[in-house]
């Protein structure tokens, strides 16, 4: 662990370089900020490599079976007399599976080939505890509880070729999620518009930022100095790029609420070319033990928000979606059979969506194990035929160009043979 404290050194040296060079340039009439901006601007002209992965965590365990309905499997309808999504209202995907009607907004993305679905995906660990299973999915180490950092943070630590920017790894929310926690720098932003030093007026906030920056620059070394420098860089970059002024484009209409806000702000960061490589957002409300509903109801309402948020994000980014992949994830799925409260209980396998980038969409991925009781996990739940680490790993390799997964998913030997082929060349 201790060696990791040396990681942000690169940031300091770049800053030192920028500062020193900047000072020299002042003499020539250049604004030192110019160089700063130039250093950031180089590698991320749109379409020149700056890839982004957006992780969207559905906390509470989404019912994959009613999100992406196995309409050809008779057990689905047999086990869910009250809450099965009727065939008549399903949006057919490939004859075997159908979209929940409240996800109608995603159908055009499926048709144009930018949306893929992986079914029967999940964790090899059998736990049905939300917090254990979320922990396992976020650390990327099912069964090992004491892993200190998240898989996405380990990715940032080991893939060092990405340019240094405080926005490389950004989580939307008040705290860093486990996925992004660890030795590599990562930002937690609850609201882009409120990031920075709070003051009644903008000048006040600028002034405070300058004062604190001066305090930290001269008086501390090591992690305190490099992290605060990143923070002030982030404030400056935000001020400069002002991502919040970018209105949704192409008629994108984000749904009201936290999820829509966060996806819109992720799109703003991407459009501002701030070097976001991994963005994280989460959305709750999937723990539908009671009155889950069929095409209407609790699950329907959550899916409606999800579908609208994703299609707005896709529309908003337009051409840029070539460089952006959205991956949804959830800690486990739900029981095949409905419970006594017209809901579903904690299960095992679920479905995940992959959207954008070079995704070969318009098809289903993963082996479908079937819902026959003899094929179920522990006789009750959808079995897992794709380990989530294989899907996450394939995404890191094929979308972000990760060369080595062994440190990112320790104990899970990376094997391209297990890749599903979700991404095209």
């Amino acid at each position, binding site marked *: 662990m201790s060696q990791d404290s040396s990681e942000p050194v690169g940031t300091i040296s770049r800053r030192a370089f920028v500062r020193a060079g900047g000072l020299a340039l002042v003499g020539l009439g250049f604004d030192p900020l110019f160089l700063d901006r130039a250093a950031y601007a180089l590698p991320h002209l749109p379409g020149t490599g700056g890839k982004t992965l957006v992780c969207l965590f559905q906390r509470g365990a989404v019912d994959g079976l009613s999100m992406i309905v196995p309409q050809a499997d008779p057990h689905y309808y047999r086990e869910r007399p009250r809450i099965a999504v009727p065939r008549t209202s399903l949006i057919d995907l490939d004859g075997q599976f159908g979209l929940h009607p409240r996800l109608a907004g995603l159908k055009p993305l499926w048709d144009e080939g930018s949306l893929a679905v992986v079914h029967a995906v999940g964790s090899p660990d059998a736990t049905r505890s939300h917090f254990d299973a979320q922990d396992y999915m976020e650390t990327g180490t099912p069964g090992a*509880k*004491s892993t200190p950092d998240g898989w996405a943070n380990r990715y940032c630590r080991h893939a060092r070729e990405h340019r240094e920017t*405080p926005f490389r790894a950004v989580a939307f929310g008040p705290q860093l999620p486990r996925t992004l926690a660890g030795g590599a720098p990562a930002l937690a932003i609850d609201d882009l518009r409120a990031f920075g030093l709070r003051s009644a007026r903008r000048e006040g906030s600028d002034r*405070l930022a300058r004062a604190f920056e001066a*305090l930290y620059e*001269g*008086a501390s070394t090591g992690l305190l100095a490099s992290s605060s420098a990143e923070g002030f860089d982030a404030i400056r970059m935000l001020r400069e790029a002002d991502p919040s002024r970018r209105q949704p484009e192409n008629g994108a209409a984000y749904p009201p609420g936290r999820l829509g806000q966060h996806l819109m702000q992720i799109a703003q960061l991407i459009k501002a070319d701030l070097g976001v490589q991994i963005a994280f957002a989460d959305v709750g409300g999937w723990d539908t033990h009671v009155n889950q509903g069929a095409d209407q109801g609790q699950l329907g309402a959550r899916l409606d928000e999800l579908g609208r948020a994703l299609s707005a994000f896709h529309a908003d980014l337009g051409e840029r979606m070539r460089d952006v992949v959205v991956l949804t994830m959830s800690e486990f799925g739900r029981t095949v059979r409905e419970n006594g*409260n017209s809901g579903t209980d904690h299960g095992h396998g679920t479905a995940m969506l992959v959207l954008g980038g070079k995704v070969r969409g318009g098809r289903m991925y993963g082996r479908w194990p079937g819902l026959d009781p003899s094929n179920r996990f522990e006789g009750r739940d959808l079995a897992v035929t794709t380990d989530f680490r294989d899907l996450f790993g394939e995404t890191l390799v094929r979308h972000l160009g990760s060369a080595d997964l062994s440190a990112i998913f320790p104990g899970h030997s990376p094997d391209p043979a297990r890749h599903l082929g979700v991404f095209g060349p």
Partner: protein
Amino acid sequence: MTKVTAILLAVLLATPAGAQQALSPRDSALHALNRLAWGATPGLVDSVARTGVMRWIEAQLSPEAPGDPAMENRERPFAVLSTPSADLVQEYLRAQREARVARRGDSMAGRRRPGPGERMDPAMLEQRRLRRIGPQLQQLTLVRAVSSTNQLGEVVADFWFNHFNVFQNKGLDRPLLPGYVEWTIRPHSLGRFETLLVATAESPAMLFYLDNVRSVAPGATPPELERLRRLRNAGRGRMVEQRRRRADSLMQEAQNRMPRGLNENYARELLELHTLGVDGGYSQRDVTEVARILTGWGTAPPPQGARFEFHDWAHDEGAKSALGTDFPAGGGRQEGLRLLGLLAAHPSTRHHLSSKLCERLVSDLPSDGCIDAAARAWSRNEGDIRAVLRAVVRSPDFWAPAAIGSKIKTPMEFVVSAVRSVGGEADSTPRLAQQVARLGQPLYLQSAPTGYPETQEDWVNSGALLARMNFAMALAAGRVPGVWMDLDRVVPLAEDATVLVEAVDRVILNGQMSPHTRSVILQELAGIGSPVQARALAVGLAIGGPEFQRQ
């Protein structure tokens, strides 16, 4: 005792060993208050320096610590302290049940929120009460850290809770946690490690959190299920088809929910985190054997209060062998106690724990010397925590120049020490706890059994630092809700910026302000006419600045 030994002893007690040259009495007092307390309050450094820092530490370690009547008054508004665990559990179950019923009703009749003047229904009131348990416990912890005179006790209690971490939001752990903190951790945090270890192993909160309640000998059937089965079989002939199906589905449900075999979760964390440490020399076989030994360590059914119970039916009666020790068949509950004794006395455990204590109290990278001193005291005193703490603070490494100011405060340490530095107090509303959560350390909400990390890599990141600066400015301006303070009393208004900065250095930073910080603050004060604004800015910059992040 001769006069000479008495004088020698007095000198030894007054100044830390080996630090006579390195540190002034004020500096050593400040260091002790940073590490063994939640920071200094105005004037406390001088008073500890006058008493003699070692004497102050001894007094803090003394089992006959004087009572703290002011603290008792502050604790009174916290209902979680006076409500028995069993009652909280009952309330929790009732609220769960009623919430389910309400949800069912809601969807049929549309949401019914009470209109103005309409009484809120009891289920909703109870829900609300339950939701308050967690925040209340968080705030109680902060009030104690800010205001208790028994500062070392509060630091050590925090250390042990974190070591034996339990996550508040895992179902029943919400109502169980107040009792866990109050009766499992706090009374034992300066006692013998083995006593504390056994207390956690017998705590419903831990057994539930790490799933030991679900760990049973393979094939074991609880008497309740047996009864249900008999009942169904007996009634079979007379039951109408519909009732039979209902009974079958109940059986099925009960069976599905019944644990079916070993759950190694607690056994693994007991070895890896609580005692031996990850490199403590145990194998997967040991984990399984320990899990077998601990089968039966469970709780009464939640509706009956979820108290600790040993269940013979769930216990694996076979012979076991763990960590090179044989446990003959039929050991029952006793073999679990024997195992815990073995673990508590194991050399790996004392090394693991000594190292963790030194990491918390001395340095992110504690030296072998310090760890060895603590481990030696551990073995000489059979894991007496006081003796181990004494060894740590008497180790030269504790007072070494490299250790002073070398650790970065955790969010809780930062918030509590900031409030203490301005002579503030926290009220009984959970608002200060929200601030700590916003800085990234929501109390009792670390879901991983590792507890919160202790080293700077985990706490220092750009977003978190900006949040600390914002907190500092808000506190200095009197804008942190739920904090009482009288800044006039500690940093009087001053027209002259130099006088003001002098006072801020003396009171808030205890003379540690660097020349650089001084010049930046003076520069910022230059254009400010209002003394009130100037003071808020100077205090805010001092608390949000780099010196105050260190301890």
